[in-house]
């Protein structure tokens, strides 16, 4: 039930600048995912919101109230840790009731709330057990249960699924999403897994080296990445990048790289006109590199297949153009074979261009 705002947030650990000038406004009831590679400052950001880490500079507001100096217990938040941090000397019930007991809730109400939460999470039979006697997935549920009984203003999750096996992770992903729909509470969720971010978040914040890279809805990040880093980070397999030269010739704008030459569609060419330099980085996703039956001048690329990765519903082709490796997605019916030549016809409309200087998207 709360809006969370971070304003010019900075966190330094001695020389290490873990979080830099971080601005973010999280509307009430939103499911926000912080995603980024290891060490980019996600956990640190989350811990500052929780009040577990002192803020070097900047402000955090919960419901328009500055909480910089407020101890964690007075922020009315709940957090689920990566290792769950269940109290091993308490039963599941006691674990879940702990926060309510501390806040001096009446016994009956505590019981009621724990029961409700246990029902939601299907852990009703486990209430008398100690955490040691639970499986990984059950512990995970208890940790979530402990958070929801308190009905806090904000939920914080720090990679809660990373200790689960792949199958359980997918299942819990769905359940957490459902839980959010049901509770309608603001959630800040940290993960380094972009698939998790894409599938769960209403809104995704991509971070790198303590800096916010882009904020947006999952598909917005996918189709309109703000820079090369986001483009490469979101989507799997990652977007292919190459450097090329822009050539203004008769009949339009062309992109020339070592192995091939492509004609840039008119609308993109118009936007590229204002770009002062000749060299660009261009990116294209694997699914935008379909096979072509034959060579078409200025529209197809000639590649050599190196490895096939059949996944069933699709096949990924590791191919080479000159010295550069690309990944292309093909139909399961593909005839491609390793060491054979192949023509790919890039979907030029979906091509992205990035500045060679700062790697920002050109449009």
């Amino acid at each position, binding site marked *: *039930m709360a809006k969370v705002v971070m304003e010019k947030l900075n966190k330094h650990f001695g020389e290490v600048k873990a979080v830099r000038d971080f601005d973010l406004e999280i509307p009430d009831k939103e499911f926000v995912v912080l995603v980024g590679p290891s060490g980019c400052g996600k956990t640190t950001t989350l811990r500052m919101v929780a009040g577990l880490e002192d803020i070097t500079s900047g402000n955090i507001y919960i419901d328009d109230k500055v909480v910089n100096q407020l*101890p964690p217990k*007075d922020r*009315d938040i709940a957090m689920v840790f990566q290792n769950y941090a269940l109290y091993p000397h308490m039963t599941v019930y006691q674990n879940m009731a702990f926060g309510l007991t501390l*806040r*001096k809730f009446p016994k009956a109400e505590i019981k009621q*709330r724990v029961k*409700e*939460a246990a029902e*939601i999470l299907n852990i009703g039979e486990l209430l008398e057990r100690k955490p040691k006697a639970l499986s990984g997935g059950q512990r995970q549920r208890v940790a979530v249960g402990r958070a929801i009984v*308190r*009905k*806090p*203003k904000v939920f914080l999750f720090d990679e809660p699924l990373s200790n689960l096996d792949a199958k359980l992770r997918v299942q819990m992903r769905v359940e957490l999403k459902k839980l959010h729909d*049901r*509770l*309608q*509470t603001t959630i800040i969720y940290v993960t380094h897994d972009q698939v998790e971010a894409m599938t769960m978040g209403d809104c995704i914040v991509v971070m790198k080296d303590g800096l916010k890279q882009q904020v947006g809805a999952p598909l917005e990040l996918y189709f309109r990445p703000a820079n090369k880093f986001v483009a490469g980070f979101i989507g799997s397999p990652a977007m292919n990048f190459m450097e090329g030269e822009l050539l203004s010739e008769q009949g339009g704008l062309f992109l020339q790289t070592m192995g091939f030459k492509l004609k840039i569609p008119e609308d993109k060419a118009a936007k590229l006109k204002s770009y002062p330099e000749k060299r660009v980085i261009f990116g294209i996703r694997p699914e935008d590199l379909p096979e072509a039956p034959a060579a078409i001048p200025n529209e197809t690329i000639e590649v050599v297949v190196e490895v096939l990765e059949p996944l069933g519903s699709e096949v990924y082709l590791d191919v080479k153009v000159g010295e550069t490796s690309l990944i292309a997605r093909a139909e399961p019916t593909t005839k491609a074979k390793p060491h054979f030549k192949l023509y790919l016809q890039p979907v030029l409309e979906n091509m992205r261009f990035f500045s060679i200087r700062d790697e920002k998207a050109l449009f």
Partner: protein
Amino acid sequence: MRISENIAIQPGKRPGRRWRWSGLLEDRTVMGMAFVAPAVGLLLLFLAYPLILGIWLGFTDTVVGGTGEFIGLANYISLLNDALFWKVTYYTFLYTGAAVFFKLLLGFALAIVLNREFRAKGFVRAIVLLPWIIPTVLSAICFWWLYDTTFSGITWVLMKIGLIGHKIDYLGDPTNARIALIVANVWRGIPFFTIGLLAGLQTINPSLYEAASIDGAGGWHRFRHVTLPLISPLLAVVTTFSTIWTFADFQLIWVITRGGPANATHLYGTLSFQRAIPGGQFGEGAAISAFILPVLMISVWVCYKYMRREE
């Protein structure tokens, strides 16, 4: 579940005084200081202060129950001119050197013997620790009796098998007494080395030995190139601890020989006790025990260095 209700943050039942106290403790520094205060207070009063007071006393002629005058280096000068003091110094170093050497050797050997899986391992390990657990004074009494000239069981066995023709005066002869005490100290100290080093040996990943074997290393090479380097920091710390304890030993000597015969087995610790408590010469006693300080400082330095390296 109704979501809309908010949890009001309810303060403790009785705000006011109590609340303010616990509020203060929320501050890291305040809480940290408050928590270390009892320990630090006790240690300052009964450890740090006496350490300094002891050094000061060494420069005075304080006697028991009285105050003394500052007499500069007089205690030290008279000690350094005293042949007895040099005799004690000699034995203190001999005792420490020999005892630590054999404790290390035998303790390490036993640790290696025990570092394998066998039935009753826990039981054997527990038994091995006994000499370390049982109050030293009490086992010292036992050694004292075992070293009795007439009734020693050791003598009885040696005479039975015909190795010796006459009784051995274990504690009456200076050389014998010195050796006898070192043996008793080694007996008591082996478990510390064994259990300490065994713990270290068990942390060594067995796959390292397997890898070394595959590389063609024999038993000795595995020990020399895998075990020893990995265990050397622990070895250094254990040895340092044992060295300072042995150097400053008191109990075994005081119970078994009281420094005799002819003062041959005095250590700094026992001599300083003899001068200060029965003798009443606090100043002189403190000056004698001050000679333990350099070894203490070296021990602290070695430990510090290895702990730093571990981090």
